[in-house]
Structure formats: structure tokens, C-alpha cells
């Protein structure tokens, strides 16, 4: 099999697969060497980026997946009947962040950080499949431990938990919070189509001391 054909083959698999597909699966299906597959995938990532295609190849949730670019959110979104118009509430996002960075974590720990009751938010996040019960802590009352799911990784285009941006130390309190108007459009946020910002998951910059590598692996 020529290199060109191998590349096309992998492309076909990526195109057809509705979920992120890992190197191991590709290897199993094609019989190709994982190292070779990895090289081809990396070259595909670059290729799609450099040629301003309508989609990019992203590493999410431990696999690779073709995803449309956010530039075309409106038009592509029009294809889908039930496109999400609104987003998570701030309460949900705060809770989700706490769980993402501190898992496994107890409800009481979450509530201690947020300073408010979080039962309703937890239930919502559970029902959306963003978080799950990891188990119970061996302590009086055997309280429930929470963690994030692979759906969470897929939803935010994260490769793995280690790709979460480093938690910032609070140097100043002027986080540039975005203003969202009634249409749900960001007026001054950072969200843009540039891959550099959003897809560079490697926690390069940041003044934070605490890194996300202390997290448990998501099985």
C-alpha cells in the first residue's frame, strides 16, 4: 500500500466515524503500524489547517475527529433541528470547572468553594452527561465522588484532562469577562476562529502554579 493510499484510507475512516477514533482502532481496522498512523494523522492535521478547509482534525477524548470550524457555526447549525441556542449557565460552568480540575470531588467540597448549594446544578450536569459518579468516599456517610465524562471532553474539544488550561493564579481581578447580548453573541470575548487560541490545549502560557497533571486519568 502506498503512502498516498494509506493517507486516503485514514481520511475515509475519519470521515465515516461518528465518534472520535483512536490510533489503536485505526490500527486494528487497517493493519497499519501505530507510529505510521500517528505520522499520517499529524500531517492531516497540518494539511487541513493550512488549506483553510471548512473543518479541522482535532484530538478529542483520546481519539481523532473531524470537526467543522466555528466560523461556520450559524450555517452548519442550520442543518440541525435541535441546535443548542443557549449555553450552560454560569453556575453550571463553575461547578463543571471545579469538578474537572479537582476530580474526584465531593459535593460538599464543591459547595465550599462556590459558597452555595449545588444540588440542582449537579443534577443538571449529570442529566446532560457532563459529569458522572465515580464512586463513594470511604468516610462517614459514604458521600458521592464526582468526575467528568468523556462527553465532557468531546463537548469542549479536549484531548484529555491534562489538556485543561492551567488554573490561573489571581494576579489581578480584571478577567476580561465577555459580554453576551440577547442574541447569544459575544461582544468582546476571545472566541474566534483562530486555531491558535482555542485548539492549543497544551498548557503553555499562564502564570499559574497549579497544573492539571495531578488529575486522575479518565478511564
Amino acid at each position, binding site marked *: 500500500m502506498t503512502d498516498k493510499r494509506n493517507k486516503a484510507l485514514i481520511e475515509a475512516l475519519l470521515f465515516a466515524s461518528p465518534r472520535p477514533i483512536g490510533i489503536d482502532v485505526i490500527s486494528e481496522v487497517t493493519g497499519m503500524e501505530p507510529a505510521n498512523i500517528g505520522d499520517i494523522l499529524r500531517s492531516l492535521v497540518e494539511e487541513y489547517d493550512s488549506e483553510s478547509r471548512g473543518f479541522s482534525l482535532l484530538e478529542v477524548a483520546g481519539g481523532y475527529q473531524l470537526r467543522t470550524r466555528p466560523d461556520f*457555526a450559524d450555517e452548519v447549525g442550520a442543518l440541525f433541528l435541535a441546535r443548542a441556542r443557549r*449555553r450552560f449557565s*454560569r453556575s453550571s*460552568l463553575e461547578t463543571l470547572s471545579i469538578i474537572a480540575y479537582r476530580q474526584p470531588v465531593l459535593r460538599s467540597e464543591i459547595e465550599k468553594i462556590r459558597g452555595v*448549594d449545588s444540588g440542582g446544578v449537579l443534577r443538571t450536569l449529570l442529566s446532560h452527561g457532563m459529569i458522572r459518579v465515580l464512586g463513594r468516599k470511604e468516610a462517614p456517610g459514604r458521600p458521592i465522588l464526582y468526575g467528568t465524562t468523556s462527553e465532557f471532553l468531546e463537548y469542549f*474539544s479536549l484531548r484529555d484532562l491534562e489538556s485543561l488550561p492551567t488554573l490561573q493564579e489571581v494576579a489581578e*481581578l480584571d478577567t476580561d*469577562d465577555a459580554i453576551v447580548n440577547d442574541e447569544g453573541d459575544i461582544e468582546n470575548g476571545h*472566541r474566534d476562529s483562530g486555531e491558535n487560541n482555542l485548539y492549543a490545549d497544551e498548557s503553555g502560557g499562564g502564570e499559574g502554579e497549579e497544573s492539571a497533571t495531578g488529575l486522575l486519568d479518565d478511564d
Partner: protein
Amino acid sequence: MFSWWFDLGPWTLDEQMTTETDHTNTEESTLALYRIEIDKFTGPLDLLLHLIKRDELDIYDIPIAEITRQYLEYLDIMREFNLEVASEFLVMASTLVYLKSRMLLPLDDEEEEEIETDPREELIRRLIEYQRYKTAAHDLNMRPQLGKDIFVRPELEDKAHPDDHFIEASLFQLMDAFARVLSEAEKRRPHEIIKDAFSIEDGVEHVWSAFENKKSMKFDELFTGSENRRKIVTIFLAILELMKRRQLMAVQQDHDGPLRLIVEPAEYSGRPPGE
């Protein structure tokens, strides 16, 4: 325009985004308070951070008296607008008042020697910790989100082999499915008094006879024809019992998909119970 619509499956969200409006003019602080969407603070810490940021206070050296005044003023406004003030806001109010008293009143000489720490320290620590996650939450939200900003090939419903690819349903899915069945039945319930007893073993029998030789069934199908609430509950208990005995397994194809029950799935063999 299009003759088909794709089903997005689990990626539909129906929660509101709440926002922070920008306030930089501290001279109009009272007026500014009125302009805020009053119900949008997620908690007392959120409110405090807002006040600190708005008035450009030093978080490491919070002017307690001033911030307490503003905080209490804010609670008044909330009540003015007939908004429910969550108890946590009140707890924080009393904490602030207490801190204020600690800062104002001189301590006895004895106490002063023992207590070297700034009484505000705990609050500051909490605020800083909370701010970290608030920022993280904001950054997370800035990412493109699946189903809203970026899209992928939708799942195909695999009609040929419905049981080949599934995930084990969680307790919540099971409870939700049962609640749905129950409320459906409530609507159709005739007004009768049912006399016969229906035990769990009867329920087990009902389940097995519904299955016949089938290997799997839709959860809802086990309840068709049963309108008696007690019978429905008992059937559900029977299902749970069979799941406990590891003779049945509750599964779904994807997170929001319909629940199915599988007979003696291979996954259970060799697995220790309670796993």
C-alpha cells in the same frame, strides 16, 4: 431548504447563559446596582467579587466596612424587587458584619497576643479560590462547543444490531424512564379499586413472559397494558430485582437514547457482583 433534519442527540442544551454586565462607573454605584440583572449572581462570593472588581478594591486588603455596607444595600435591593435571597447570602451578610466588628473593636491585650492573623484572611482565601474557578469556567465557555459552534457527523441509528453497541444505563436514566412510564399510566388510569395482590414474584413472571424468547426488549414495552399504578411499581421492582440477580441489564445506545433491557448479558459473566 433541507428535506431532512439531523438529530443532535445528547448535545442539546436548554440552559440559559447568564451574563455579567460591565460596570466601571463607581460614582453611580446605586444606579449601577439597579442596572444589573439582579438574579444573576451565582452566590455571595460572586457578588462580593463583583463589588470588589467594580470598585477596584484590593482583594488582599478589603475595606470591610465599605463592602459590608454595599453588600447589605444590595440585599435590600434584591428584597425590594421581591427576589428570593438565598440563605447563603444571609450567612455571608452576618459573616461580613462579624468581620467588620472584629476590625473595629480593639481586642483585649491577651487576645491580641494570641490572634495574629488577619480576621479577613479566611474570606480572602475563599474569594481567591472561587475566582480561580470562575475564571476557569469563563475560559471553558469561550471554547467552541459541540453542537453549538462546531459540528460532527451525527450518529447513525444502527437498526440492524441494536444490542451491539451500548452503554450501561445509569441509575438516573432508569429512574427517569420509570417516572415517564408512571406518569403516562397516571393519565390513562381508570377509576377503579384493584383487589388482587401483585407480588414481586408475579412481576418477575410478567417480565419473563413478556420477554418470551427474546434477548432484549425496550424498557417501556414491559409496561404496556399495565395501568394499575401498583402493578407498574411492582414490575419496576421486579426489573430491579432481576438486575440485582444479574439476569437483566439496562442499556442505551447513547446517552439520551431509549432504555433497553438485555437478558443475561455476557458482560456479567465473570464479573464479581457489586462491581
